[in-house]
């Protein structure tokens, strides 16, 4: 029922760093998540995009020197599509995703804390209904545990360099937009509403 104490401690330490970063990144906040979904605050995309680019370089490098192995989830089409729709509606109403709701609870947010009980209930429902969910999960097809490099027969580094270049371009555009915004004098208070 329990893994070894050193595994538990390792998980705890990794989690503490993860939670610390989520809180410092301001994504433990309802408003930041919802305003991202309303396309008005790009904090979530900036964090996730950077994490994916930086993460992919190191993880594929570790795999190349045999120090890590990939853990790919299968494309069970019904499960992924049905799950994504439930997840999307749930996240928009809740205003947190699973990791950020735990971080939000750590920040003191009571609605996030109540959501943890909701998430546990959702997990109870999933396990209980597991047999009857199988036709939905597997019924639309199983493409297996595939990656884009495998499917296209290309090097993963082609994809990683592509992602990194897209990331750097987005970062440059973002910086330029911030630079253009900042020198402008604040005139909001003197201008009448039209």
């Amino acid at each position, binding site marked *: 029922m329990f893994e070894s104490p050193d595994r538990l401690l390792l998980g705890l330490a990794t989690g503490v760093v993860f939670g610390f970063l989520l809180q410092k990144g301001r994504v433990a906040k309802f408003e930041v998540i919802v305003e991202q979904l309303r396309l008005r605050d790009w904090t979530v995309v900036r964090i996730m995009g950077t994490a994916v680019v930086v993460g992919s370089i*190191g993880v594929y490098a570790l795999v190349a020197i045999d120090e890590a192995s990939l853990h790919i989830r299968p494309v069970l089409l019904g499960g992924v599509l049905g799950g994504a729709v439930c997840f999307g509606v749930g996240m928009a109403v809740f205003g947190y995703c699973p990791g950020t709701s735990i971080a939000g609870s750590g920040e003191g947010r009571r609605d996030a804390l109540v959501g943890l009980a909701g*998430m546990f209930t959702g997990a*109870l429902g999933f396990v209980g209904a597991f047999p009857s969910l199988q036709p939905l999960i597997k019924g639309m097809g199983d493409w297996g545990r595939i990656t884009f490099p495998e499917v296209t027969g290309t090097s993963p580094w082609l994809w990683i360099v592509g992602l990194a270049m897209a990331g750097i371009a987005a970062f440059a555009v973002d910086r330029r937009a911030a630079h253009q915004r900042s020198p402008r004098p604040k005139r909001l208070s003197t201008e009448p509403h039209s």
Partner: protein
Amino acid sequence: MHQQGEKMIDAVSQKSWSPYVVGSLIGILSWFSFATADKPLGITTAFEHAAALTWAAAIPDMAEQHPYFAAKRAEGKPPIIGWEAMLVVGVFFGALLSARLSGDQNRLWVPPMWERRFGPSKWKRLSAAFLSAALMMFGARLAQGCTSGHGISGSLQLAVSSWLFISIAFGVAILTALAMYRGQGVQDV
């Protein structure tokens, strides 16, 4: 050294860091978790396992007879309190620590933005939070991942399932949020 120490203290007492710094550090943390634990960063597997163990404790026959347990035994991934569960516990305390060190604790029952749109009722917000969180977790387990497991860890592995999941999940979430808060101005965060 002394100056570096002060800089560290200054950094942890700030309420926010650049999203690019945070994202880079999460990326590096994912190298660490692959290298040390042979696991991607993910949150919801731990909830599924805790739920399964709860079922088994409540109905002892279930661990023997319910197909969930047979399926997970066959996969070699029986429910367990392990690295993933402690990761979840750690996220809570890590965020608590960061919020304490920066004085950024928000003991809110109803987020102001929700209140402006749906009113100050605590029970309305909490029941919506409970139900939506349950739906979100149910969806995450159907798809075998969440914003962390698919969105970050799966995407960085260039997994087809993860890019598919996160595109659709965010697409649906964007449409839902736009509909829910239609006509609301930009919120102060």
